[in-house]
């Protein structure tokens, strides 16, 4: 009974967190009276950049996944594991790294200059695309690699005995598999990029490179035009909901991929050309993904000693927010780790953090100064946004525990407390640690709703990095970014490790 009561309380809180802010936004939107041509442009840009980002990510992921699926080489396991890392990488850290490579004085321009080639610009559409591909190429690669590894080994054996050439193997085995996997991968990345805020905030901007989310932020932050922000929020909500439902319909690929560490034996593609091409794709991808991070680490090392007290204070805020949102997210997730709970949690994907932030702002404003509550709102929104991922991680194990021990529990008559203390939590420890690590890292790196609310006294570390970048204090920005990277990965490692030590499952 007590378990059900907790589930109902958790469900009501989550539902309230969806319905309340969305209602506040709808009421405030005033029938789109504040909608301007610039907002139409923002809508167009949002769709264009999401389409291109998803298309490019998938396009590059296909040869990369194929190379990883059929080549064994030292460091392959590490590279495949690293493909999971961008998920918990703070956006602002990656952006700083990408600027160091593709920016005006970055590595690439320094290499291009002696050749007399034109300088590359990172700000604008192509900067947004580079960053989105940086984040989503690994995701697309993992999804497609999973498809490749799911092809039964017998099919490649059959192809070898029939003597099929690369073209025939492609059309008879690989292309049909890709037709199944690619639409889902495209849809997932499209949805992710649709709600992209931090990338657009740092690399976009201006009338030609503003996403809806960025327009919401600007109308709040610069014009304090709540009606316009709410109207934009409504459009964003409709867009994300529609795209999210379509993606859910056509995506069958699970989020947590397993068994990517093996290679399917192949008899085709042994020629020098295909070996060379595979090597090229793997090297290019590794360079594209690792160089920016190496640049952050290198320039950050010099920057860390120069960090002022405000950066350390922001780091303290970030850790507090991360731990708070992790606790809140787990309190929601434990009773909601069921089928219908996971459906409820999907709202965390459909509802953009900024829309949620605006809604909460509107609700809180009559009673308190929303800016005073910035960190609380951020922690709540971050917990909400992580909920669908956490539920996806916890639910299979939670359901297995319930299925395996329901009769024994009933036969013994275990109380709710004894069940939780002696059975449920100990057996759930490993996925719980992983989920906590993920939530903490996501929250630590979040640069979303905090940008709407925060004043300098309540900045989190990602916001501080952004402010330092805006003030062109690049060395300090790099130092703070490195600190952010260490703290995010450190929190993830510590919580995940905590779940593994002495784990029951």
């Amino acid at each position, binding site marked *: 009974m007590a378990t059900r009561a907790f589930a109902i309380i958790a469900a009501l809180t989550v539902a309230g967190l969806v319905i309340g802010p969305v209602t506040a936004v709808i009421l405030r939107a005033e029938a789109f009276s504040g909608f301007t041509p610039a907002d139409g442009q923002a809508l167009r840009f949002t769709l264009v950049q999401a389409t291109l980002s998803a298309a490019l990510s998938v396009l590059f992921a296909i040869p990369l996944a194929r190379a990883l699926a059929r080549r064994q080489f030292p460091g392959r396991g590490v590279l495949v594991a690293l493909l999971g890392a961008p998920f918990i990488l703070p956006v602002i850290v990656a952006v700083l790294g990408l600027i160091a490579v593709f920016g005006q004085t970055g590595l690439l321009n320094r290499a291009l200059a002696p050749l007399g080639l034109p300088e590359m610009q990172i700000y604008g559409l192509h900067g947004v695309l580079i960053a989105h591909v940086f984040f989503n190429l690994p995701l697309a690669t993992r999804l497609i690699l999973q498809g490749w590894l799911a092809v039964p080994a017998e099919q490649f054996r059959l192809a070898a005995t029939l003597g099929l050439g690369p073209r025939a193997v492609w059309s008879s085995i690989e292309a049909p598999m890709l037709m199944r996997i690619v639409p889902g991968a495209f849809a997932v990345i499209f949805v992710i990029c649709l709600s992209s805020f931090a990338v657009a905030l740092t690399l976009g901007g201006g009338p030609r490179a503003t996403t809806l989310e960025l327009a919401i932020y600007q109308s709040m932050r610069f014009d304090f035009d709540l009606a316009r922000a709410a109207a934009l929020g409504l459009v964003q909500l409709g867009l994300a909901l529609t795209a999210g439902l379509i993606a859910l319909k056509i995506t069958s690929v699970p989020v947590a991929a397993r068994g990517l560490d093996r290679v399917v034996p192949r008899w085709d593609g042994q020629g020098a050309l295909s070996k060379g091409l595979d090597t090229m794709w793997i090297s290019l991808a590794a360079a594209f993904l690792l160089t920016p991070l190496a640049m952050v680490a290198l320039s950050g090392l010099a920057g860390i000693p120069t960090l002022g007290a405000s950066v350390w204070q922001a780091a303290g805020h970030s850790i507090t927010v991360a731990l708070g949102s992790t606790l809140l997210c787990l309190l929601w997730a434990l009773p909601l780790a069921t089928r219908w709970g996971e459906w409820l949690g999907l709202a965390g994907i459909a509802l953009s953090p900024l829309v949620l932030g605006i809604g909460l702002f509107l609700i809180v404003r009559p009673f308190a100064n929303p800016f005073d509550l910035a960190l609380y709102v951020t922690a709540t929104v971050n917990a909400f946004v992580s909920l669908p991922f956490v539920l996806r991680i916890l639910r299979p194990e939670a359901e297995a525990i319930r299925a395996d*021990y329901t009769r024994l529990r009933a036969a013994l008559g275990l109380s709710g407390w004894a069940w939780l203390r002696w059975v449920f939590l100990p057996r759930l420890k490993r996925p719980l640690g992983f989920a906590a690590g993920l939530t903490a890292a996501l929250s630590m790196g979040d640069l979303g709703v905090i940008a709407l609310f925060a004043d300098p006294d309540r900045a989190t570390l990602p916001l501080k990095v952004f402010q330092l970048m805006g003030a062109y204090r690049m060395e300090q920005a790099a130092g703070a970014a490195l600190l952010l990277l260490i703290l995010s990965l450190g929190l993830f490692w510590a919580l995940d490790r905590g779940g593994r030590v002495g784990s029951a499952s």
Partner: protein
Amino acid sequence: MALHLDHIHVQAGDFTLAADLRLHAGSRTAIIGASGSGKSTLLDVIAGFRAPTQGRVRWHDHDLTAQPPAKRPISILFQDTNLFPHLTIGENLALALNPRTGRVSAEERARIDDVLARVGLAGFAPRRMSDMSGGQQSRAALARVLVQDRPVLLLDEPFSALGPALKTEMLDLVMEIANASGMTVLLVTHDPAEARRFAPQIVVVEQGKAWPPTETGPLLDNPPTGLRAYLGS
């Protein structure tokens, strides 16, 4: 003094089960029948995992029908999952003894040690299942049942993971302990030899009906038509 199943009727879709039985306290009864005949349903109704559509389950004068499993004077040995594998044997028995908190007093701890000694597992309290052989795990499961100290014991195809010799040894131990403490035992089994060895009386479940208990030997020597096909005799 008996376990009564008064006009029990279970209906679930096309499946029906009718039972009207009286099993004397201290008796040992085998339940036999083909897969899907309703043996497990019968056991579930007695244990309290399933409510009958009609009828009552009684122990002496106490109506158990509305009681949850843990409140019934019944302990049950499942086919598998009789203990939580991540807990030590001592912790498992402590939970069986005190399902509200899982904490036990010094006196209760002594009782746990005593029960473990009775099943031949003296000193095994700090061990986990993963450190024990199949036979030892079965003994630990039996210890869990004994520590609950209830007058009725249901055995749902127990020890099916063990080899024939070890299985017989374990069932011998169960019956020895059950006899010593006057427990009423119900054993669901597929194996006629097992039924002969351990249960003087037998309940046949076929085509949705549990027949009243009858002597095991004569019934298995001359089984009714439905059971004959199942036994292959």
